[in-house]
């Protein structure tokens, strides 16, 4: 029987290694660093969601000499995430940011086993004494992007590459569509699902299908820059997401709603270090800087730029609530009457599209 040979040889090599590795640790420094771990659902090079979180991680390293960070990328939601979270806790990390909705129950499970470690879960709603949640009102920035799309389209048909049919994404599509319809009441926003956070192939195909269907502006809500590249290749406008990726589509790029997670991360690491952190939820809008628009491309006409600045200011000051009624759903039914708005709890469970969105939500 041959097979055990492999096991024996690997074991031999491993033993030799361990013997070679028993060396002293480096000398302790005055203040032990605050070790902060990050869990990403995509690769840091996605140019999108995970990239944006990683920018804020690097910002922490630059800003605070007492912070030491590490990250794990492309961690599948489920049992794998649970292990990686625990690996951080086992190695003395005091704070872990888990940056995808699907990590929620893994975070809760691990947090219970390691009560001394602080966990921050992005976009979830379950909290514990050592688990906080954070997110931002990205729908506001999507609304501003929608204004631009509505003014730039000639065909009145706008495409939207959307990842998962879940409330978080549906809310962003709706914010975008409300912006579009505010300046172009006849325009439609057609949605294609990719069923993945990060899948450049599917995202490119989705963008191509949307252009084939007549869209002359393609917006994306998924994590890669593939839809921008497809828009560039097909000669239509593109609106990105998560990062200022104009260099990938210099002729097509209009703007991109972006995250600046350093707004949250700087505050959290300070509090954890001082011992003043308590569990809670952060959900800031444009006024906090956690969400914003990338600088508009030069091809966006000055009057549109002015409009976006005005509406940006109105949202920041609180005089414009993008989810204020009247809002109708895609079948024409009145969902939010005049004078009412959509409370946060309903936004978390949103499973309907506003008027003007073409596409179905799987039931």
């Amino acid at each position: 029987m041959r097979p055990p040979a492999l096991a024996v040889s690997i074991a031999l090599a491993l033993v030799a290694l361990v013997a070679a590795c028993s060396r002293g640790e480096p000398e302790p420094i005055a203040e032990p660093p605050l070790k902060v771990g990050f869990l990403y659902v995509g690769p840091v090079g996605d140019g999108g969601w995970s990239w944006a979180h990683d920018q804020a991680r690097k910002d922490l390293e630059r800003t605070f000499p007492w912070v030491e960070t590490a990250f794990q990328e492309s961690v599948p939601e489920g049992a794998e995430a649970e292990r990686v979270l625990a690996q951080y806790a086992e190695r003395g990390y005091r704070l872990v940011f888990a940056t995808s909705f699907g990590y929620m129950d893994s975070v809760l499970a691990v947090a219970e086993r390691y009560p001394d470690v602080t966990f921050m879960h992005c976009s979830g709603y379950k909290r514990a004494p050592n688990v906080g949640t954070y997110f931002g009102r990205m729908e506001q920035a999507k609304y501003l992007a929608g204004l631009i799309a509505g003014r730039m389209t000639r065909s009145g048909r706008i495409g939207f590459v959307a990842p998962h049919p879940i409330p978080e994404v549906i809310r962003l599509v709706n914010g975008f569509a409300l912006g579009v319809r505010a300046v172009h009441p006849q325009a439609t926003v057609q949605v294609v699902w990719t069923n993945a956070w990060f899948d450049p192939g599917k995202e490119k195909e989705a963008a191509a299908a949307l252009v084939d269907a007549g869209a002359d502006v393609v917006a994306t809500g998924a994590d890669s820059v593939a839809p921008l590249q497809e828009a560039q290749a097909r000669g239509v406008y593109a609106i990105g997401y998560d990062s200022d990726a104009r260099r990938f589509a210099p002729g097509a790029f209009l703007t991109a709603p972006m995250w600046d997670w350093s707004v949250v991360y700087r505050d959290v690491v300070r509090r954890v270090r001082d011992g003043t952190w308590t569990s809670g939820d952060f959900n800031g809008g444009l006024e906090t800087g956690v969400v914003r628009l990338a600088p508009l491309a030069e091809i966006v006409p000055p009057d549109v730029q002015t409009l976006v600045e005005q509406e940006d200011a109105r949202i920041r000051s609180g005089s414009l609530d993008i989810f204020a009624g009247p809002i109708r759903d895609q079948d024409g039914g009145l969902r939010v009457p005049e004078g009412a708005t959509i409370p946060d709890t309903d936004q978390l469970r949103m499973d309907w599209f506003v008027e003007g969105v073409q596409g179905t939500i799987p039931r």
Partner: protein
Amino acid sequence: MRMRLVPRGRTSVLAEVGVLTAAVAVSAMVGALVFAAAGAPPLASLGVLVTEPFGSAFGLSETLLKAVPLGFCALAVAAALKVNLWNIGAEGQFCMGALGATWAALYGPVVPGPMRIGFALLCGASMGALWALVPGVLRTWGRVSEILSTLLLNYVAIAWIEMLVYGPWKGEDRFPYTAFIDAGFWLPPLFRRVHAGLLLLVGIAVLLAWIERRTVIGYEVRVVGASPALARTAGLPVAARLLAVLAVAGALGGLAGACEILGVQHRLHAQIAFGYGYTAIIVAFLARRDLLASVGVAVLFAALAVGGDGLPVADPALSPAIVKVFQGVLLLAVLSGSTLVRYRIVLERATPLSTREGA
């Protein structure tokens, strides 16, 4: 010039141990260089690859936990190789097994308490077996290559899961996963996160190895694998044996998925398999198609994954990408070593061309 791999015939165990040790040593040296270049202490970093998966109760439990789905999938590949069929479909069988077990736990008939787990495992195994029988039938009666059909059915299986978790099986969060299954369906824990699926894996591997070596059925399967023509001449029902082996292989893949649902994840979601079925092909290859060895190599692969994930956590100078470089080098070295021990490279002149040149 043309390169050909010629089997060496008998090779000594000593040579094999030597070559593989050298392969691991060479990759360790390459790894040390890469780690040092990244600014991490090379030896300590290599040490993490050992201490993370084996050096603590936590690490050991995580390694064994990951070895269960990988081991079952490797068995699914190795079992089919007994009759020279390439089962590239363990990934899909895993998915269908997970689907079957989830159905049993969430939507199945009411089963008396103690029999629940067994029933869910049976549902998972059956779904996996049915999924593998499709390529079996296509091959037996349609002459369709099982390599292609098993591979392509993986995507169909994932599409089934997506249809269910985005649609009728969607849980309360409206996120693409089902509700948690009832705790009565959970495989009992052994220690930390490790569950009874580990015992099931070892038990089934031993049972199958015994059947292969000590029973008439096992003998027949070996004959069919060695030479279908001979088996046919001897009056063995070749098609029936091929189908039976594929069904067993599929059931093993199905058990991988079922154990993952009942033992760890406790709910179905679209990312449930994420490549175990493909990694299992390498595992079965390195295990020389041997069933028991497949389980052992699966543990080593699980350790490599757990250790690799531990590296950037232990030393942030090492990014996950650098770890992947090392894992790639190690895999390449071990696979090449493993191949070169069994085959030698023969360089041949392409005769027709040289003749013409000479003329």
